[in-house]
């Protein structure tokens, strides 16, 4: 009788404890450990759902010195999932796994998501993908064809053409920030592509990131031996491939591209932005938010709310430790094009001359600080943000710290930075008009 009673009670107690544990609040803080001398492990624990996200992150990307030598490296990173018979893809489907390959300025990432119960089989799949050397040659030929078609489709799209023109004007031709300036072509045979992938995989300073329903012990087991041993590459290969920017006085102040059948004129007013570590960067964060970063920004007020010239007017810049593009963008019906261009310039002139108000500063800081909550809803969000900073050599929380620095700036400090940055001589106006 005692046994009969004890077992269900124990079960129910366990059940209750498990329920409480699983009802715990959101993602934890990143836990970091050394997987091996070239690999860092990161775990963001979250036991609300039986899900696991895995990230293999290599510390080179499209702006690094090494990969831009051949578009093949980036292509190889994705093609490793494309075996000719589709066996790897079919296995991913059978395991209900999300598999993706991506690259940005500073990293290439292999991301996998799965249910916890499938993790062991998914890890076998991950190893098999990383070991695959049979890339599909016909897929390479197909992509080279579709790349050309997509490029030609882009020549008919005003946003694409403005972006292409801006990149061409701001950066030198051999600077990866300018690319692509022509359709990508995957060069090399399958063996060379596979070798490129192998080299990429063996770079030092790589990360295995894990988020979700795993304990630290389990995560350490997952990360161990997942990637092949790293090779000691010359450090130069990991350095930046960026070139000195094209100075403002060496580029035109105006440029117009023509496209058929446009019913609007599209504008992009561009200059170089500040790198994340620049002393004025926190001030720029606040200034940009006031100028064009919200629904009632200066630009949106002048071009949308007053006169209905556009549906959208905004400003923004890429957040990177390197110099990126700062852009103001909008569009309007052809008949209003001159008015809108005048207004853009007038808004900017006033902004530079008078700066922002204390009320605008406080609202912008409130928004930027409050917004951080939105980045902590899922464990993958916390992990990806951590990894983003890590591959850029930034301290954990560097972006949040920049917001804190922005919040600590006085109005005078921000307005002084605005006067330095929003110099009309630094900007180029690019328009897309009907041919």
């Amino acid at each position, binding site marked *: 009788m005692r046994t*009969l009673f004890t*077992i*269900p009670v*124990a*079960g*129910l107690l*366990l*059940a*209750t404890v*498990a*329920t409480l544990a*699983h*009802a*715990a*609040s*959101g993602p934890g803080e990143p836990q970091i450990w050394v997987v091996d001398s070239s690999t860092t492990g990161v775990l963001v624990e979250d036991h*609300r*759902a039986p*899900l696991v996200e895995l990230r293999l992150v290599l510390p080179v990307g499209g702006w690094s010195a090494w990969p831009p030598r051949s578009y093949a490296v980036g292509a190889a990173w994705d093609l490793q*999932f494309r075996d000719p018979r*589709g066996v790897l893809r*079919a296995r*991913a*489907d059978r*395991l*209900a796994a999300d598999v993706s390959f991506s690259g940005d300025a500073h990293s290439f990432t292999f991301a996998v998501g799965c*249910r916890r119960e499938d993790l062991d089989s998914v890890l076998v799949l991950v190893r098999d993908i990383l070991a695959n050397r049979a890339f599909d040659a*016909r897929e390479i030929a*197909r992509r080279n*064809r*579709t790349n050309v*078609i*997509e*490029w*030609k*489709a882009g020549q*008919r*799209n*005003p946003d694409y053409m403005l972006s292409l023109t801006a990149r061409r004007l701001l950066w030198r031709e051999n600077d990866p920030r300018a690319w692509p300036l022509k359709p990508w072509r995957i060069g090399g045979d399958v063996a060379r592509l596979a070798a490129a992938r192998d080299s990429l995989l063996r770079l030092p300073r790589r990360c295995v990131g894990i988020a979700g329903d795993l304990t630290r012990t389990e995560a350490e087991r997952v990360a161990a031996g997942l990637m092949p041993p790293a090779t000691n590459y010359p450090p130069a290969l990991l350095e930046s491939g960026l070139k000195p920017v094209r100075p403002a006085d060496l580029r035109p102040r105006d440029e117009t591209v023509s496209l058929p*059948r*446009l*019913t*609007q004129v599209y504008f992009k007013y561009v200059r170089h932005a500040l790198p994340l570590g620049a002393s004025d960067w926190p001030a720029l964060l606040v200034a940009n938010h006031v100028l064009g970063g919200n629904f*009632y920004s200066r630009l949106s007020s002048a071009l949308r709310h007053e006169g*209905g*010239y*556009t*549906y959208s007017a905004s400003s923004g810049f890429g957040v990177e430790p390197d110099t990126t593009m700062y852009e103001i963008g909008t*569009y309007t*019906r052809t008949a209003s094009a001159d008015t809108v261009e005048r207004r853009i310039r007038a808004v900017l002139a006033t902004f530079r001359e008078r700066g922002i108000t204390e009320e605008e500063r406080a*609202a912008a800081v*409130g*928004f930027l*600080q*409050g917004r951080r*909550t*939105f980045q*902590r*809803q*899922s464990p993958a969000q916390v992990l990806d943000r951590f990894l983003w900073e890590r591959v850029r050599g930034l301290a954990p929380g560097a972006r949040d710290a920049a917001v804190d620095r922005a919040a600590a700036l006085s109005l005078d400090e921000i307005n002084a930075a605005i006067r330095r940055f929003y110099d009309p001589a630094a900007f180029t106006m690019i328009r897309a008009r009907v041919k």
Partner: protein
Amino acid sequence: MIQPRQARSARAGRRLLLALSLLGLAWALLGTAYAATPPGFIHEVLPNGMEVSILPDPSHPIVATRVWYDVGAANEDPGTRGFVHLFEHLMFGGTATRDKRAYWDHHHACGGSSNAYTDWDETVYQSDIPPAGHGQVLEMEADRMIHLRLDQENLDNEKRIVTEELRMRTENDPMTRVQLAALKGVLREHPYAVSPVGTREDIAAVSLERVRDFYARYYKPRNAHLIVVGPVDGDSLLSDVRRIFGALPAAGVTPPDVPPPLGWPCPPEVDLKEDLPPAKIAFLAYMLPPPSAPDADAIAVLCELLAGGYANPYHEDLVVRRRKALFGEVMRLDLRRGGPFVFVSGVLPNRSKADQFRDMGETVKNLGRKDWLTDESLAALKRKLMRRYENQNYFAADRAEAIGAERWWTGDVGRAFDRAERIGAVTRGQVAAAFDRYIGEASPVRIYIEPERIPLLVRMFGWLLPLFVHA
């Protein structure tokens, strides 16, 4: 070997109890994902007719609020295309006591976001905000439900704004132009045939009188559903909702249902030309029933099996195995009354229309063998969907949208919580039957899109291309 009866009985009893214990544990471990209705969920119809759903969950860092009006672009009359979307803009125009910026400023100051969207079937107002700022959101939503300021000056300005939005979204990219032309060509006079942004002419013709009439008719409690998901106290919030929204007059109507596209008289073929790069694009469009149909879960599984995988069977057959196209995609326009399920192919311009449709038809016929439908593929797909639902549970906004959609699209708010069980119950036979009924035995609309200009060299020597390149 035969066991003594008593010992057998005791062992069986222990096994039973152990099984019950494990079941209890399993239930608890999976409770969050599988429970039909999460603990604390509240669904209530206020005396004035407004529906309210509250899902308290302390693990969310933000509160998601949705006010869902059961009226969308498909409810517009001919000659008023774009009106419902225009009205959505007017809802941000302020009230008798609040400036037009008040709603935005409140969200903005604490990092929140507010927005809205107009779809064919509904118009939804979205607020996502840290808990400290949520208190005033309900007051402001109720205020604009009853005291919205509607004047000619704001109407004229918003007409100009939505016309620029229309131009940007629909007129200046060839791929968008041709997709909208295809939708119109297939559905013709059906209410789903025109994009919710409407037409320039109809937007220009909107009068203030019509705006006021629409507001009085549809933006009232009887046609609204309030959804709140996040770290809130459910009972306390319900009291607030009753006080704030319960005081509003019982008014408003729900527009009549639009006809389902399945069964709508569509033409057998639609031919279009557009300023495209040198590739020919063909669609085979099949109509699917509404999500409230009895076989809707089987259809959801079918669509995912055909369109959602890495080894997508349509692409694998047409592009990878048979090399009959440069690309092969499967798309679904999922709407409240059903919508098209479309097989797409793209080929180089040397291929003829007849060949392209023949190749697509053969692939669809090959799909009819249902090699893609096995116990293993079905089980994997169910796990995949379950994972998707569980992942949505991290985000209060996604859960609020799911609750709103299930209530309006299927008439049962509870379906937002038993999706895993329903999908889990779908059988191979049901999926096969859905394929046969809606694809295998149905006649598709054939949509063909040619580039306006084909380069001279391709026209002259295109027949040589297959010797060198794929498709």
